[in-house]
């Protein structure tokens, strides 16, 4: 068993409205007169466990609103979890002394979806990429320029352009700047949140190849978040399927694409347009992803599931192993066994 680099234990994230004094008082008075205050809390991520081992590429797939970005942000340390702990190399980041916690956080970096919004338009490329290593004192002053050039070159950018501003670059090049910025602090773990979704197909292929080269050269570990199953299948060793804040299935790539177990995964995979498929009939999963403010009881997928049973509405299924390394959260698996 190889070493775990990131481990999540019972991670949850809730977003609720923040009440000012007047609103709190109003709720308070309301409840005294027998009114139950409306529950407006969104459970974006609901009790997720995950272990990522060194060198692995884990794909995280789900529809918009399922909580995949929130989960990624918590792993990257941008957002604190409401519950649960995040372990970096076996140690809980929250309980580390400040210096060690900072080092651990630097080792986890994030690459964002929108290469236009994620770069400061008023900074030159040299400052965007160089700011973090300079502030953290990672590079001796005399070697700074060579270090910077090396970072840019590794991401496929010409160091001659380092005096330019982001608007002078195309979308694909901007994404490379974002990658160079993340790699400049020598991370071991990258969270890529829809990192190629905004790019044209030919540019997307260039960036995916870059990710694979970096993985090999720097021994990086990835959490690759995407709604594009084709991209995830190509890149990932293991795939997690998320639905309304919960992980419903987790398995090695070949296994999940070859033998999907959860009805949601099966429906999702059947909808993926594939270039091999010609002039097919499109069908649709019935209904839409429900609001996470009031998720359905029991198994969140039961109102849309073709094989739902009465039990599905009352009891939430847990992730159970259905084959070696293949876990699925569905009551149907109990019925068969």
């Amino acid at each position: 068993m190889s070493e775990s680099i990131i481990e999540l234990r019972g991670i949850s994230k809730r977003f609720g409205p923040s009440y000012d004094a007047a609103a709190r008082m109003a709720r308070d008075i309301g409840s005294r007169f027998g009114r139950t205050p409306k529950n407006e809390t969104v459970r974006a991520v609901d009790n997720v466990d995950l272990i990522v081992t060194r060198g692995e590429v884990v794909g995280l797939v789900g529809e918009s609103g399922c909580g995949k970005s929130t989960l990624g942000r918590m792993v990257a340390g941008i957002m604190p979890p409401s519950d649960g702990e995040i372990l970096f190399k076996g140690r809980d980041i929250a309980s580390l002394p400040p210096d060690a916690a900072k080092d651990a956080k630097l080792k986890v970096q994030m690459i964002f979806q929108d290469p236009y919004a994620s770069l400061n338009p008023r900074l030159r490329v040299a400052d965007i990429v160089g700011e973090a290593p300079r502030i953290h004192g990672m590079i001796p002053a005399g070697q700074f320029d060579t270090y910077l050039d090396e970072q840019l070159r590794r991401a496929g950018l010409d160091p001659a352009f380092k005096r330019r501003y982001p608007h002078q670059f195309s979308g694909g090049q901007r994404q490379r700047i974002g990658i160079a910025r993340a790699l400049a602090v020598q991370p071991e773990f990258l969270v890529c949140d829809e990192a190629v979704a905004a790019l044209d197909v030919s540019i997307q292929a260039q960036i995916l190849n870059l990710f694979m080269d970096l993985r090999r050269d720097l021994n990086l570990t990835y959490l690759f978040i995407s709604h594009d199953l084709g991209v995830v299948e190509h890149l990932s060793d293991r795939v997690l399927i998320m639905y309304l804040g919960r992980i419903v299935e987790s398995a090695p790539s070949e296994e999940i694409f070859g033998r999907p177990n959860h009805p949601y995964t099966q429906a999702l995979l059947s909808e993926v347009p594939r270039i091999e498929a010609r002039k097919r009939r499109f069908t649709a999963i019935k209904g839409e992803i429900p609001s996470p403010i009031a998720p359905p009881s029991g198994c969140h997928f039961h109102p849309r599931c073709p094989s739902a049973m009465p039990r599905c509405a009352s009891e939430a299924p847990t992730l159970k192993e259905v084959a070696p390394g293949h876990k699925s959260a569905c009551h149907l698996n109990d019925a068969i066994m």
Partner: protein
Amino acid sequence: MSATLEVRNLRTHFFTRAGVVKAVDDVSFSVERGQVLGLVGESGSGKSVTGFSIIGLIDPPGRLTGGSILYQGEDLAKLSERDMRHLRGNRIAMIFQDPMMTLNPVLRIDTQMTEAVHAHVKTTNADARARARDALGMVGIPSPEERLNAYPHQFSGGMRQRVAIAIALLHNPDLLIADEPTTALDVTIQAQILAEVQKLTTDHGTALIWITHDLSVIAGLADRIAVMYAGRVVETGEATDVLDHPVHPYTHGLIGSVPSRNKRGERLRQIPGMTPSLLSLPPGCAFRTRCTHATSVCEQEPPTSEPSPGHTARCFHPIEGNAP
């Protein structure tokens, strides 16, 4: 069978201060009744401008500088704005990429939909409302009667796009132009919308132009494919011909860069470089700077070859054999 739409040598140029942008340059294709044409290309290839040219929504500094757009034998390029308004939204409709931009955020759905009905048919308010309700029902919006009273922000992205589609379908158009309508949507919602437009082509015989950069969607939907690069159609033909036996190196490259065509974990075939600026296109084949097959002859205007009937490509060095 006669074509619903036949575009011949269409040129749409933008006369900007920095120079003339030839966004659409000598583009020809046709779509028959009930057929689906996939117009494929990357950003800046001119695929959206082609759609806007057909429906007559090119604003200055842009102008149609040549060619004809024959809709059921009538040239749309020569039509007066008044006559064009009779066709637009009625016989010819368009669905845009961003449903939030198509819908007016301060008007209720019923107002926007009945307005579109009254624009083309003399009828009572009650009848217009009934038509709007039926159109919403047709695109799979639950309880359409109540939803008519909602505002656009009360719908999710997929629902909003379905409202936009319902408006486009109000008059059962003969020609529908869809400009990347599912790019911003999840796969399950995309499948619902694809199912809707597919039904429309089979039930009403609507000719459909589906503009996209996503070859996987096109593979499942289109009868014919036209691949655009830098304002030109570089390859066109039956979907199976273009996808299985692509001839142009650009089409080859595009198909090769789709992840599922490659072995898992292996390097993707990539096209080096990026799409050129349309302001400073080199003479000859616009793809030659990125092409691995390019030779000095490519600085000339490439000839059109026809590897199989109905399948044409503009290239000096057509590739033989199967798709990558």
